[in-house]
């Protein structure tokens, strides 16, 4: 897929299971799958509820609030398109709603990242179809 944005980093492969999540993200809305049968909230957006196995999937707006569970500072060019960003952070964020998500933390020096840091989701437009959810200190 070519895109005028020139975005060179890996992009998600949008599937029948998760297209609604990415469509919402493109509108700068952070939604999570929520089971209409049992109320469970999960991520990533599997088509069915991992708790009660119902396929009656709805969506709920996430608050975008979370805390940094852990982080790493990538120091080697495993992914060529990320090489110019080295060293860059990857964080595992525990969302207020429960699910865990990987992301990058922006607006902070890598040296200042700490576990337990409260963070807030922001959207970064990558292409015409995809906006990535990133986080900044809350």
């Amino acid at each position, binding site marked *: 897929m070519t895109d005028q944005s020139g975005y060179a*980093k*890996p992009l998600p492969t949008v599937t029948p299971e998760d297209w609604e999540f990415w469509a919402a993200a493109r509108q700068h809305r952070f939604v999570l799958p929520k089971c209409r049968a049992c109320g469970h909230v999960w991520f*990533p957006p599997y088509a069915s509820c991992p708790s009660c196995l119902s396929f009656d999937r709805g969506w709920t707006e996430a608050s975008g609030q979370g805390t940094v569970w852990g982080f*790493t500072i*990538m120091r080697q060019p*495993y992914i060529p398109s990320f090489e110019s*960003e080295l060293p860059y952070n*990857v964080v595992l964020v525990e969302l207020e709603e429960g699910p865990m998500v*990987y*992301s990058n933390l922006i607006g902070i020096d890598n040296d200042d990242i700490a576990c337990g840091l409260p963070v807030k989701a922001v959207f970064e437009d990558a292409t015409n179809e995809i906006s990535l959810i990133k986080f900044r200190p809350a």
Partner: protein
Amino acid sequence: MSDREFAGKTAIVGIGSSDFARLYRTPDPERTGEALATEAIAAAIADAGLEKSQIDGLITGGLPHYEPVAYRTGLTDVRFVVDYPQAGRMCAMALMHAATAVHHGLADYVVLFNSVVFRSQGTTFGAQPQGLLYDTIYGMASPGAQYSLGFTRYQAEYGGTEEQLGAIPVAIRSHARMTPGAIMQAEMTIDDYLDARYIAQPLRLFDYCLVNDGAVAYVVTTAERARDLAHPPVLIAGTAGRANFREWYVDLGFWDEACRSMKADLFDPLGVTTDDIDCLQVYDNFSVSVLWGLEGFGFAPRGQGLEWVQGGRIALDGELPVNTSGGMLSESYLQGWNQHAEAVRQLRGQAGDRQIPDCDWSLYWCLSALPGATLLCRGGLL
């Protein structure tokens, strides 16, 4: 399986390994995954003192397909075949399968192996196409980065320094230096460890295991049949598993619950305690796996593992030797299979200069998405 009735009823009676160091120095295009497996199988059958015609069970691991090895070894008419996919976590699972198969008479003598050609294939264990949780789009790449992320959390909860963590790879390297066939033979001090580059900070080069080619095979049979074979039998006291599938890889409790569950399965039916364990031969994909297992299995108090491993405690002459042939950090990345081979040598009393005096019990664990553990003991103890 871990019940009292099963404990000690099966045994590892043969082991065979590639010469990891030679393959590392001089890559050999003729040593394909199938060829390496064949070599290890032949060595394991010979070590057991068996004839190939007696092998009637085959568990393959690490290869794209199970049939090619059957043709190359002539193990074409066996009664029991299982194929495990390429994954580091499968050793305890395959051993569990072999033991239950011979215990229940599905086969008399099972050969099982793992064969890998990571180095000659240029495997980097880097980014996945997408990752289970869209991790690759954020630049997350490699299992090591996942364990690194876990270690920042561990440090936030319990403290501890990178220098303290270095005691684990340094001790394990000292064991590789006493092991013929181990890949990493150079001396490594704590300064060498700290001077090495970061891969995914806070983990450095020597927190990561090797990437190499090789194969390891075992022969498993019942303890009763084992009595007539070439070497003192090494008994399978128990095997345990406890899946821990998380899309984000590192367990949020550093696998404490999985370790406790497997420990209870292995130790409780036998009344074994941590004090009984003479050595650990564990899955050291990354140094932190050793740390978390030491705490989870109760060798070190929770949160104090980094302090606990200081002062040579896990070195060969220490209180609890760990990975006495150099593990995956320094001997060979055969994914737990070289560790069990070393356990067998120690429990037979055949570890040469590395022999632990009166070695009766050896414990294995692998902390991954599919944790497994094995308790082995010297013949006659069960």
